[in-house]
């Protein structure tokens, strides 16, 4: 491995720049949003939404670590966000189960009795 690459990797591990986290967070969010829009299965859509929320959470934790006077507050927000995501999915899976019981499918484009 060339010396420059090794030095770069060391620098990255020692103090990863804020932008790196933000880019990864934005990517996660974008992948999740893309999946949530194109997938048909409701359970897969929930997985994509989890990806979106985790992308946001990564951004949040990165900001909380880099901001000068945020203290530990940002990280505590991140814990609350995780709890909210869990609550959303709990209610969500219950509703998906209810839909599955009455229609034997959870594909969102097949569940269309109301239109207009």
């Amino acid at each position, binding site marked *: 491995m060339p010396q420059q690459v090794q030095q770069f990797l060391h620098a990255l591990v020692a103090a990863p720049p804020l932008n790196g986290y*933000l880019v990864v967070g934005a990517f996660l*969010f974008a992948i*999740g*949003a893309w999946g*949530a829009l194109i997938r048909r299965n*409701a359970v897969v*859509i*929930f997985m994509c*939404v989890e990806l*979106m*929320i985790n*992308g*946001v959470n990564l*951004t*949040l934790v990165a*900001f909380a670590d880099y*901001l*000068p*006077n*945020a203290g530990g*507050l*940002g990280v505590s*927000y991140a814990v*609350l*966000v995780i709890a*909210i995501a869990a*609550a*959303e999915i709990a*209610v*969500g899976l*219950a*509703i*998906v189960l*209810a*839909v599955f019981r*009455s*229609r034997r499918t959870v594909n*969102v484009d097949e*569940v*269309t*009795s*109301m239109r*207009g």
Partner: protein
Amino acid sequence: MAVSGQAFIALLPELISTGFLIVVLLVGAFGESNAGVAAGLAALGSLAVFVSAAVLLATGFSGSFFGGGYVVDPFALYFKLIVAGSAFFAVLAAARWSGRTGDAPEYLTLILSVVLGASLLVSMRDLFGIFLSIELATIPSYAMVAFDRSRRESAEGGMKYLITGVIASSVLLYGIVLIYGVSGSAQLSDVANTFTGNLTPVALLGLGLMVSGFAFKVSAAPFHFWTPDAYQGAPTSAAAFLSVAPKAATFAVLLRILLEGMPGAAPTWTAVMAFLAIITMFVGNLFALRQRNVRRMLAYSSVAHSGYILAAFAALQGGGAAFAVQAVLIYTAAYAVMNMGAFLVIDLVGEDAKNYNGLVRTNPAAAASMGLFMAALVGIPPLSGFFGKLWIIIAGAQSGSILVYIVVGALVVNTVLSVPYYFGIIRNMILEEPTSETGGSKGNGAVRFSVYVLAILTTFFGLLIIPLSALVKASGLL
């Protein structure tokens, strides 16, 4: 930082709703056939929240608590009154129906937790607190929409509402996190230092994502597509309640974020609001014209009314700003009484437009109430909707901006556009002959009581307007 006794008084409405929420849920845990007890307790709870907020308002209690993250001012208390009042009527309307489902305590608990979330929401001054309270109000509402197991549409509406809702929540959260990142704090007073005339691209992206999230919550076009399915599938009491209380609270907190957190960026966001207002009004009214199902028609009409309230947001600049805040407050109260009433009539008559044929001969009281609500939703004086629109038009006229004049023009055009579908119902009730499909006297005493009280409030809103306008003038926001 210790929690003072003052903070307990400030949290009184929320503590009361939490207490009743737990008690109602326990009633369900300790008895199978306690629907009446649960409904009584839930109605008592929402009345207690209403009274506690009214007492705080009357005694002039105000202040900032928990490190400035929670504020009690007349503005917040005003919206707590609207939320608790609409919850009271929702509980009355749901009492008999939820008893038949066998899960009355659970359903009533959901209503009370929406009350808790919405009344926390209007007091929040911290972006993450705002997100938490929005979710506290929204997650139970998904369950409320999907609660009716006897109709297939209910779970379907719930699923559509839920999937779009959780996506919108994560978009809203991303916006909030970006705003937190660029301003270094989630407190609205610190955000105001960053959001000045010149916005960085990240700040602009954060603002855009946050406004999109809020636009979804208030069902503004182009984020409205969940509204008709959710309200058509939902139990009537849920549709009536969710189209009023969480929406009013979301408008309130959006007003607070924009005015307290981003006054410097007003030219940017008033332009966004003007754009949203115009397309929301047109989309709501044009789609409502095509509906034969009254419930779906009212869902689109609630989209249009969100557009009218957003028109007041567009006027939040220049000389009309203070008046535009009052317009939002007046309109929300006016909308709450007339829209809840119109939805509850569906419980008495039915959701198909045919059910209203000749209703004036078979059930004159319900027909008169529905006629009043429809006329109020159009904005016929002296009913409640007229005063809301009047306030928005005056605020727009005072703003002195061409863009706001265009928005007000669109509001007037849309008022005319909305006449056919509201008056179509009135026409059906008076001119058509009653058929076998005409709604007789369904529903029960509690629903009828709610409808008549709301009809009286809608009719005599003009008498309340003088104390109400004095109240909103002293709202403490601008």
